[in-house]
C-alpha cells in the first residue's frame, strides 16, 4: 500500500530498496511532460477552494445574514488562532513530522503572557508597557517547548508523534498549574480594543475614522457603524505572508520540502537535517506562541487551553484538507489557509443555519477523508 504504515513521521524511513516507480514510463524513456492542465485537473487540484466557495454560497442561503461583511470578517477573526496553528503545522507536516503540542503551547503562552500582564497591571504599570512586556516574554518562552521537541526528534530520533505528545502533556500540565485551572482576569482593558479593533470605521454618510470608533457616536448609532478590516486580519496577514515567503522563496523552505520528501536525499545533499528539524519545531512552537499571545488580545483574558479543545487536531485537519500529505514533502501555506477557513466557515455557517455545532465534528471528519482520498487518486498534483 502506498502510505507509510501509519502516516507518521519516521526518522528512519522504511527500507525503500528498489522502490523506483516507473509507472509513468513510456517507450524510449520519455517522461510525460507537463501538458496544458485540463479543467478536471485544475478542479481537483483546487477542490478545497471550490468547496469553500460552495460552502459560502450554501450558507448564505440557509443562514440569515451569513454573507455579510461583518459576518465574513468575524469568521476570519475567529479563525485567527487556528490559522496561526495551521501555519505552524504546515511546516512540520511538510518536513515529514507532526506537532501535537501546538494547542497546548499556545495555551501555555497565553497563560504566561497574561499572568505577567496581570501582575504588572496590578502594580499599576502603564497598560502599554504591560502588554508589551507580557507579549515579549511570552514569545520568548514559547520557543522552549519547540526546542525540546526539535532536539528529541533530531538528536534522539524520537518519533515526532511521541515527542510532541509528551510536550503536549507537559505544557498542558504547566499551564494548568500556573493558572490554577482558572482564567486569568484583571488584564489591561486596552487589550480587547487592540485585539478586536478594526482599521477603518465608517459611519455611513457621516464619519470615517481609523483604529477607533468615530468620536461622538451615540449608543443607538453603533449598529449603523461599518467596520472594515479587523486588526487581527492585519496581524494575520503579515504573519502568513512571512510564513508563505519562508516556505516558497527561501532555502529554508526548499530544504523543508527536501527533508520531508526524502531525508536521505537531503542528508546526502549536504543539508544539516538535524539542525533544520530543530529549526522547524522551534518555528512551529513560535507560531503557536504568536497564537497564544494573540489569544490574550482577542479575549482580554488569559484562557488556558482545555483538554477537549483539540486545536492541534483541527489545525492538522486544515493542513491536510489544504493538500498536504502526512508523509511529508507536500503542502502549501495557501492550502492550509483554505483548509482552516473551510472549518471556520462550517462552524459559523452551521451555527447561523441553526444546526447543532457538534455536526462540525462529523463534517470535518468526512471532509478530511475526502481530502485524503483525493490525494491518493491524484498524487502528483502539487
Amino acid at each position, binding site marked *: *500500500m*502506498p*502510505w*507509510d*504504515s*501509519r*502516516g*507518521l513521521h*519516521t526518522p528512519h524511513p522504511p527500507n525503500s530498496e528498489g522502490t523506483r516507480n516507473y509507472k509513468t514510463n513510456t517507450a524510449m524513456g520519455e517522461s510525460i511532460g507537463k501538458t496544458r492542465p485540463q479543467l478536471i485537473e485544475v478542479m481537483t487540484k483546487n477542490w478545497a477552494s471550490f468547496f469553500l466557495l460552495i460552502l459560502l454560497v450554501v450558507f448564505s442561503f440557509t443562514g440569515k445574514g451569513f454573507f455579510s461583511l461583518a459576518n465574513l470578517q468575524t469568521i476570519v477573526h475567529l479563525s485567527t488562532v487556528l490559522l496561526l496553528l495551521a501555519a505552524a503545522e504546515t511546516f512540520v507536516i511538510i518536513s515529514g513530522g*507532526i506537532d501535537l503540542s501546538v494547542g497546548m503551547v499556545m495555551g501555555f503562552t497565553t497563560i504566561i503572557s497574561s499572568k505577567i500582564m496581570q501582575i504588572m497591571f496590578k502594580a499599576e504599570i502603564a497598560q502599554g508597557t504591560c502588554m508589551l512586556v507580557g507579549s515579549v516574554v511570552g514569545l520568548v518562552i514559547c520557543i522552549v517547548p519547540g526546542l525540546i521537541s526539535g532536539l*528529541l526528534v533530531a538528536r*534522539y*530520533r*524520537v*518519533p515526532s*508523534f*511521541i*515527542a510532541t*505528545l*509528551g*510536550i*503536549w*502533556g*507537559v505544557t*498542558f*500540565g*504547566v499551564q*494548568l*498549574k500556573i493558572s490554577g*485551572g482558572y482564567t486569568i482576569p484583571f488584564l489591561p482593558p486596552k487589550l480587547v480594543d487592540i485585539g478586536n479593533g478594526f482599521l477603518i470605521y465608517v459611519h455611513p454618510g457621516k464619519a470615517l475614522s481609523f483604529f477607533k470608533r468615530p468620536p461622538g457616536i451615540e449608543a443607538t448609532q453603533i449598529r449603523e457603524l461599518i467596520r472594515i478590516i479587523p486588526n487581527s486580519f492585519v496581524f494575520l496577514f503579515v504573519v502568513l505572508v512571512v510564513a508563505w515567503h519562508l516556505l516558497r522563496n527561501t532555502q529554508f523552505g526548499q530544504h523543508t520540502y527536501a527533508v520531508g520528501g526524502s531525508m536521505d536525499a537531503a542528508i546526502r545533499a549536504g543539508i544539516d537535517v538535524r539542525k533544520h528539524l530543530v529549526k522547524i519545531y522551534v518555528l512551529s512552537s513560535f507560531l503557536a506562541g504568536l497564537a497564544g499571545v494573540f489569544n490574550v488580545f482577542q479575549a482580554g483574558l488569559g484562557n488556558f487551553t482545555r*483538554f*477537549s479543545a483539540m486545536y492541534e*487536531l483541527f489545525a*492538522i*485537519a486544515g493542513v*491536510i484538507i489544504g493538500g498536504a500529505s*502526512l*508523509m511529508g514533502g507536500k503542502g502549501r501555506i495557501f492550502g492550509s489557509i483554505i483548509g482552516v477557513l473551510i472549518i471556520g466557515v462550517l462552524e459559523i455557517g452551521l451555527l447561523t443555519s441553526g444546526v*447543532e455545532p*457538534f*455536526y*462540525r*465534528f*462529523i463534517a*470535518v*471528519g*468526512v471532509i*478530511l*477523508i475526502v481530502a*485524503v*482520498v483525493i490525494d*491518493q487518486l491524484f498524487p502528483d498534483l502539487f
Partner: protein
Amino acid sequence: MALRADTTITRRRTLYTFIGLYWAFFFLLLEFIFFSSVARGFLSIRVIQNILFFGTAIFLLGTAETYVIITGGIDLSVGFVMGFATVLAAKLVAAFIGLGMGPAASIALGLGITLIIGLIPGFINGTLIARLNVPPFIATFAMFGISHGVSELLLGGVWAKNLPHLANAIGNGYLLYVAPGKIISFFQRPVVQRGQKVLEIIPNVVVITFFFIAIVAFVLKRTKFGHHTYAIGGNMDAAVKAGINVKWHLVRIYMLSSFLATLAGTIYVLKYVTGKGDAGAPFLLDSIVAVVIGGASLYGGKGTIGRTVLGCFILATLETGLRVLGVSTFDKYIAVGVILIVAVLIDQFSPELVHKED
C-alpha cells in the same frame, strides 16, 4: 566507530537490553514505594483493587491499541468510540426499562446490542485504511470526530438516566465477599452486623476486563490471527506475498479495537450508571502511552499485551496515587508526558538499535 573486542559489545548489549526490558517493572515498583511512603495505607488490597477498578478503561483501550500499533497503525478513535458506547448503552438500557423489560434483560440486551453496534466504527476505520488507503492517523481521527458528533447527537444534551439499580450493583460489585471468620459469598454482599468488616475481593468489572484481555492476549500470542498481525506489522509486503489477506485482516483489527473500546464503554455504564459522550477522551493518551511504555514500537511488529498491561498498570497507579494524594490531575499530564518521552528514549537502547549503530 569501529567495534572493538567482542566482550565489550556483549556486556554493553546485555546491560542495555536489561534496562530496556525491565525498566517498566522497576518504575512500577518505584511508584508503589513512593506512594506508600507518602500516603498511608497505599499498599493495601483495597487500594490495589481501586487501581484496577479505575483503570479498566485504560486496560481495555491499551489492549486495543496494542493490536493496532503492532500492525503499524494507530487508532485515535478509541476514546470517543468508548464515549459513544456509553451513551448508546445507557440510552438502550433506559429505553428497554421504559418498555417494561426487567432489569436483567434490559441490561443484557442493551449492552449486547451496543457491543454489536460498536463494531461499526472499527469496520469503517478498517475499510478506510485498508481499502481506500487512508493513513490510519487520518482515518481514525476522522472517526474520532464523527463518534464525538454522533454521541452528542444521541445524547441530545440530556444525561441518560433511569438505569436499573442492577447495573450499579454489577458495576460496583465484587466477585467475592468475605466476612472474616464467618461468611463467604459470591457476587452478593453478605448482610452482616454493623461494624463487621467485609473483605471485598476483585471487582466484577475487573473480572470482565481481564477475561477479555486474556482472550485477546491468547489470540495474539498463540493463534494464526495473532501471528499474521505481527507479520503485517513487520513487513506488510511480505505478508501480502505470503498470501495473507492483509486488507481483510486490517479491517478485523480495527473492528477488534473498536469492540474493546465499546466494551470499555459498557463497563463504564455499569460502573457509573450513566452515559457520557467524552467519557473515554482522557484515556486515549493513556492507552497510547501505555503501549509505548510496554515496549511496543510505533513502527509496528513488536509488542505484547502483557507488557502493555504493565504499562497500563503504571499509568493507572499513577492516576490513583495522585488522586489519593489530592494532587491535581494537571500534574498527571506533566508526569505522563515525561514518562512517555523517557519510555521512548529508553526504547532506543533496545537490542535492535545496538546493531544498527554500525
